[in-house]
């Protein structure tokens, strides 16, 4: 009886720890991905702005000539 209780409590503790670890790992990956994606977003916004200004400049040039 005592031995069974021991084994049961040990396996429960181990399961909980593994589950928690997996959840944390998943959350961490999600967070990392989000952060990297945010960097990409910022960069693409910047590139779009640059492209807008260049496009405007080319239009001005074309109209001036």
């Amino acid at each position, binding site marked *: 009886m005592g031995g069974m209780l021991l084994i049961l409590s040990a396996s429960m503790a181990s399961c909980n720890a593994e589950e928690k670890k997996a959840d944390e790992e998943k959350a*961490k990956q999600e967070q990392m991905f989000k952060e*990297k994606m945010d960097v990409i977003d910022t960069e*693409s916004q910047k590139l779009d702005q640059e492209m807008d200004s260049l496009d405007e*400049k080319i239009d001005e040039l074309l109209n001036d000539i």
Partner: protein
Amino acid sequence: MKIPKTILLIAVVCLAHTAYSQDSKATKTEVKAKQIETKEVQKDKKEVLKSDIEEQKEALKQENKEEKGNIQEPTKAKVEQDHARGDGHGHEGHNHAVGEGHGKMGSRDVPIDAATEAPGSPEERIEHHQERANQVAERQANMDYKMQEAERKLEEKFAKNEISKEEYMIKKEELSQAKLKREQLEQKEMMHQEKLKSLKQSPAPAEEVK
């Protein structure tokens, strides 16, 4: 077999402690890994900021240069060469019928709001960036076309003596600056796409994160 309650209690406490210490050890390792990765992301952000500052510096330099009127006077031979090249355009008929209408091809021919909208799920965000890449390619082609048109018009006007040599050289310089900027932008865009590609291939792709 009868186990005394005290021993049983001690055993349970021991097991709980072992499980807790293992768990906290794993958490510590994860925290450390997260710190390292956060540093990497910050490094990326810093790089973006750094390139931004460099660009601003470059733009300021360029502005100063323009203010000082540092456009070099063309040599006679070069002007004649350019002039000769310009003559050819009038007769070759490069889309003359389209001519003046190109001014209307505004910078918003292809709407680019891709990154600003930033939809929710990772798959959507990646898809959004792919759409943006296609739009950027179209925009680049459009800009190339407009620059070619501007160059053609300039040569034509110069050939017909409709603009002065000085004006011609200034416009030519502006056009070459625009071309240079366009090339720089293309390179930046390529690097940006590479980053996106590597993010898609990273260990936490959209499907897994979902």
